[in-house]
């Protein structure tokens, strides 16, 4: 029986269990007229029975699909002659693959020996047995589960509480997916980073002034020993982030002040959606805007007043990144200003404040924690931004604070280190994970601080 058929069958059984459970609950009290004697509504008894049919059997199917291939492979290997069993892990793996491919009718590498053919027949037999066993066990679980639930249904039985427990378990599982994924990402980055730090000392990585990740491919190669001092990347990232914030914070804040306090409803109704469109433009589009429009413009403008500007300058990337962040700053600041109670505004106005005095002396100070929190979130966004800097900032790891020169950032280097064919035992590739770890720690820290500030501020007025 196909797995889909099995699942469909289970679905049908679940439906039946629901209706059986529901009618059973009504029957125990003697009809719908005496519904009040039931602890829970009849539907809950139905759900209870359905859950008992579905969950145990589904769990079994899941477990089976995970365990079955391993067990079969182990049995196949065991049945092979001793000579084959003594092969190295790689070769054995290849052999097993061939057996499996032969069994399922895929292309097989090499000649088909008698041994291979016998093993593949065994493989087919084992798979068929396993499948039969699975179907029987699953249906058995479903029937027994349903029967167990059916027997437990009684007027005093708290079906609703049980169903709600299951529902809340599902909700917890759903919410933990994001958390578990984060932990998984952190661990994977962490382990690769630790491998990197075995080859390159932490101090050299964090304090070294030269970044040149090319390592020798052949032992006799010269000149490419690799140098993993990440300071130029950190300064490059900070430089571009600083330029971006220099653009985004004043513009975003002034936008927010205008929208929150000065604009008419009509202007607000037009401006806000446009800002949201700005927030929705893919960063790769910002990237070629930066590389093709802004960077040449910056270069020409710089040359016109006698500066020597690199064609891929930190300034161009920072400017465009700042524009990208404006909506974030303005909408978070707008929220913060609007969250200041109307009573504050009225109080200030009633004392004879002008609009600007109200804004500068009352609303902004009151909203400042929220605004600071928003800016911190924007900074962490800027640090983690990749596409714009990949396209506009360049790859040269210059240690400079001159915004007219080309710099490179942590994210750009991660991209260049991991694009293309990689060997995962070289420091060059592993360096990406170390950089990723640094990036993760910094942005996580900023986010935590930012959210904390925002939350503390919210508590002040609610």
């Amino acid at each position, binding site marked *: 029986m196909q797995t889909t058929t099995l699942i469909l069958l289970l679905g049908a059984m679940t439906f039946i269990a629901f209706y059986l459970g529901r009618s059973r609950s009504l029957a125990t009290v003697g009809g719908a007229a005496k519904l009040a004697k039931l602890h829970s509504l009849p539907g809950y008894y139905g759900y209870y029975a359905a859950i008992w049919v579905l969950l145990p059997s589904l769990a079994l199917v899941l477990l089976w699909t995970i365990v079955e291939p391993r067990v079969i492979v182990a049995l196949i290997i065991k049945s092979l002659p001793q000579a084959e069993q003594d092969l190295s892990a790689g070769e054995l793996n290849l052999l097993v693959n061939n057996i499996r491919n032969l069994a399922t009718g895929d292309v097989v590498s090499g000649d088909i020996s008698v041994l291979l053919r016998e093993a593949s027949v065994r493989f087919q037999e084992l798979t068929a047995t396993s499948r039969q066993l699975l179907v029987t066990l699953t249906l058995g679980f479903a029937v027994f589960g349903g029967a167990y639930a059916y027997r437990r249904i009684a007027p005093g039985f708290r079906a609703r509480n049980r169903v709600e427990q299951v529902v809340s378990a599902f909700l917890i599982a759903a919410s933990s997916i994001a958390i578990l994924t984060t932990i998984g990402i952190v661990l994977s980055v962490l382990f690769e980073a630790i491998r990197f730090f075995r080859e390159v000392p932490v101090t050299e990585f964090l304090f070294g002034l030269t970044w040149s990740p090319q390592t020798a491919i052949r032992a006799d190669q010269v000149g490419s020993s690799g140098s993993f001092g990440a300071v130029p990347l950190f300064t490059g990232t900070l430089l571009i982030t600083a330029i971006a914030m220099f653009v985004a914070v004043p513009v975003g804040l002034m936008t927010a002040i205008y929208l929150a306090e000065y604009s008419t409803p009509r202007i607000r109704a037009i401006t806000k959606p446009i800002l949201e469109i700005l927030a929705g433009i893919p960063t790769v589009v910002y990237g070629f805007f930066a590389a093709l429009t802004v960077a040449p413009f910056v270069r020409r403008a710089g040359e016109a007043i006698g500066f020597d500007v690199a064609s891929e300058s930190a300034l161009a990337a920072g400017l465009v990144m700042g524009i990208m962040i404006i909506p974030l700053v303005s909408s978070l600041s707008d929220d913060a200003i609007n969250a200041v109670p109307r009573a504050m505004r009225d*109080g200030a106005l009633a004392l*004879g404040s002008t609009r600007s005095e109200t804004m500068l002396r009352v609303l902004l100070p009151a909203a400042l924690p929220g605004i600071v929190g928003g800016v911190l979130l924007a900074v962490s966004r800027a640090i983690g931004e990749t596409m714009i800097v990949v396209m506009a900032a360049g790859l040269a790891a210059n240690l400079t604070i001159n915004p007219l020169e080309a710099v490179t950032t942590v994210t750009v280097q991660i991209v260049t280190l991991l694009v293309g064919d990689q060997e995962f035992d070289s420091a060059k590739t592993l360096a990406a994970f170390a950089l990723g770890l640094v990036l993760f720690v910094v942005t996580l820290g900023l986010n935590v601080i930012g959210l904390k500030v925002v939350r503390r501020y919210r508590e002040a007025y609610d």
Partner: protein
Amino acid sequence: MAAMTESSGMDEATAAAPAVKPQAPANGKAGDGQVGRGRDAARPDKDARHSALTGRTVGQVRCENPFIVAENIDVFYGDNHAIKDVTLEIGRNQVVALIGPSGCGKSTFLRCLNRMNDSIDIARVTGTITLDGQDIYSRDLDPVVLRARVGMVFQKPNPFPKSIYDNVAYGPRIHGLAADRAELDEIVHVSLERAGLLKEVKDRLDEPGTGLSGGQQQRLCIARTIAVNPEVILMDEPCSALDPIATARIEDLIDELSANYAIVIVTHSMQQAARVSQRVAYFHLGTLVEVDETDRIFTNPQHKLTEDYVTGRIG
């Protein structure tokens, strides 16, 4: 029972009010201020009194030595006619209480007096209001200057999230009332003193104003208002968020302040109106039904609606 039938009759009258409004008061008696300023406008007999909501005001809308004069004020919020043809005078050094059921327009009227309704886009005010003879809705009057002259205390205490000192110093600072720090200190101390708060806070002027108790916060807001040296203080249910003891302190304070300021206070408490005010104005569904001296409103109201309200039968 009587009240029930009366109020249902009143609803019909309300629905018909715009049509009937200008002509013929209910029984020909001229209780409204249009006739004369004197107190001698004939009072109707008990049995022939006003009972319908006609849009005319009974009692004395005029007063001696008026400081604020509101003439024929209408306020619209969009299509909603919130205040209908209200005329009222408020004297110097007088406490006028505005009473009436919720939504009757008393707060709206109060907010007309310092143009706080300007900040509501859909609000439109017609009629004239003069402050000491000067039209406050005229084009060349800056609402900012007006609000410095007409202070306001709100229903919920709303101290700024600043120190106690800075809360009181806020107004003098923005209006440049103090030449130096010493002068500012003086203003802050005097204002807190007059608001009856100085003793409690003088050792912690640097602490945030939001950390005070509700009653103290409200007195801080009063101190903040009088620090600007206004001529009129508007109070919008200043005690509704306070306990009885804090309320009593505010009421004492209103009494003291009335020596120097004209005070207009909106209140839901009849007792409070009786205790603090010299005159009472009763609003009903956007209409000023009756204005008179406080004693007379509470002991011998001329309008049936006023009587029902002050005796607790409606509202």
